[in-house]
């Protein structure tokens, strides 16, 4: 790992100032992606700004039908939260199935969505639940946030503060996981809301995306048989050593059907 200067600000405002003044600054949350990247020398920031000392970035608040989760809230905290388990059990279950216990004790919601790994779990939930990403500058609709492989709508030095998740009537996330890393080979998050069904797919393409065709199929009736005729487009799927494009397309349908069935 190359040398860098380390900062531990106590507020978002202070963090914003530090990153703005750094030559090539990088925010660090739990470090579960950034530190491995720096060890491989794929990243070599001049300054590392640790968000770990900022109390206002951490915690879970339920206000009416909105569950707000701070960017620095760990996967373990979301998984164990009685508020999240009550309001959106599928979200608590998703967090409980990310990586392993030690990763869940350090990894955060903000770090996961800022990183936007094509196989990450949280992006599917943010999109399917119709979440809103709040930053120190603005609000971004969840479905506009994930723009490409490891790319997001975040501007330079913008800091995620929290994500607002509206409570659905029912929701479920099913992932077919890589047995070594537990990342999603394919994951499908479906939500039944008062307005309409919503769905998002992760792991299958360059990054998590809203699955409009699954939503259309479910509009006719929210049951797994509504997806009998659905086929995911093979030509859009990732293909790698873990799974071929054909296999991923098949998994999208099966995971979607299982997720819908689990909402019943």
């Amino acid at each position, binding site marked *: *790992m*190359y*040398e*860098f*200067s*380390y900062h*531990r600000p106590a507020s978002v405002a202070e963090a914003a100032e530090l990153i703005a003044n750094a030559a090539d600054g990088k925010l660090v949350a739990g*470090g*579960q992606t950034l*530190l*491995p990247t*720096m*060890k491989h020398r794929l990243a070599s920031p001049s300054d*590392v700004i*640790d968000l*770990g000392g900022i109390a206002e970035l951490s915690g879970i608040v339920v206000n009416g039908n909105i569950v707000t989760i701070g960017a620095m809230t760990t996967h*373990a905290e979301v998984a164990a939260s009685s508020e999240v388990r009550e309001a959106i059990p599928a979200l608590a279950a998703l967090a409980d199935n990310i*990586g*392993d*216990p*030690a*990763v869940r*004790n*350090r990894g955060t919601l903000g770090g996961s969505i800022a990183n936007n790994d094509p196989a990450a779990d949280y992006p599917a939930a943010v999109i399917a639940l119709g979440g809103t990403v709040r930053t120190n500058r603005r609000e971004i609709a969840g479905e506009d946030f994930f723009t490409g492989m490891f790319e997001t709508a975040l501007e330079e030095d913008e800091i995620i503060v929290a994500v607002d998740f509206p409570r659905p009537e029912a929701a479920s996330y099913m992932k077919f996981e890589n047995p*070594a*890393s*537990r990342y999603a080979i394919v994951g499908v998050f479906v939500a039944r809301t008062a307005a309409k069904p919503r769905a998002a797919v992760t792991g299958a393409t360059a990054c998590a995306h809203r699955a409009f065709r699954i939503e259309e199929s479910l509009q006719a009736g929210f049951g797994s048989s509504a997806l009998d005729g659905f086929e995911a487009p093979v030509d859009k799927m990732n293909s790698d050593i873990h799974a071929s494009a054909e296999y991923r397309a098949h998994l999208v349908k099966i995971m979607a059907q299982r997720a819908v069935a689990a909402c019943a």
Partner: protein
Amino acid sequence: MKIDLTVNGRAVAEEVEPRTLLVEFLREQLRLTGTHVGCDTSQCGACVVMIDGKSVKSCTMLAVMADGCDVTTIEGLASGAELHPMQQAFMDNHGLQCGFCTPGMVMSGLDIVNRHGNEPDDATVRRELSGNICRCTGYQNIVKAIRAGARAMGE
């Protein structure tokens, strides 16, 4: 940078470079070599230690991030010559062969007891060990040891 922390109940004040990993600090600066580095890529769990009571991969944390924290490593478990019940259970149940993964397995075992109590079932232990890799044992006796250790800790 100067950091102040507690390691195995002892107050420690040391100077570290920001890029020093917690595991490097523990092994090379404090000479606590019980915590192992199996992969250095966050996969194997040989480096698991407890930070403020929670399991963490010390190869994926900077020493400066542990400033002010309470760190427990495998060296902090035994009281003198008397092994911690979880360590004793690994011995009694032949829960190790080469022993390389063992410090991380024992620390993760303690984390399982913290969150699941003294009677975790096989499926729970196996699921919870998903971030700890052993190249020798085939896991059967590790699972047995953690269940026995968990029980012994409740007695």
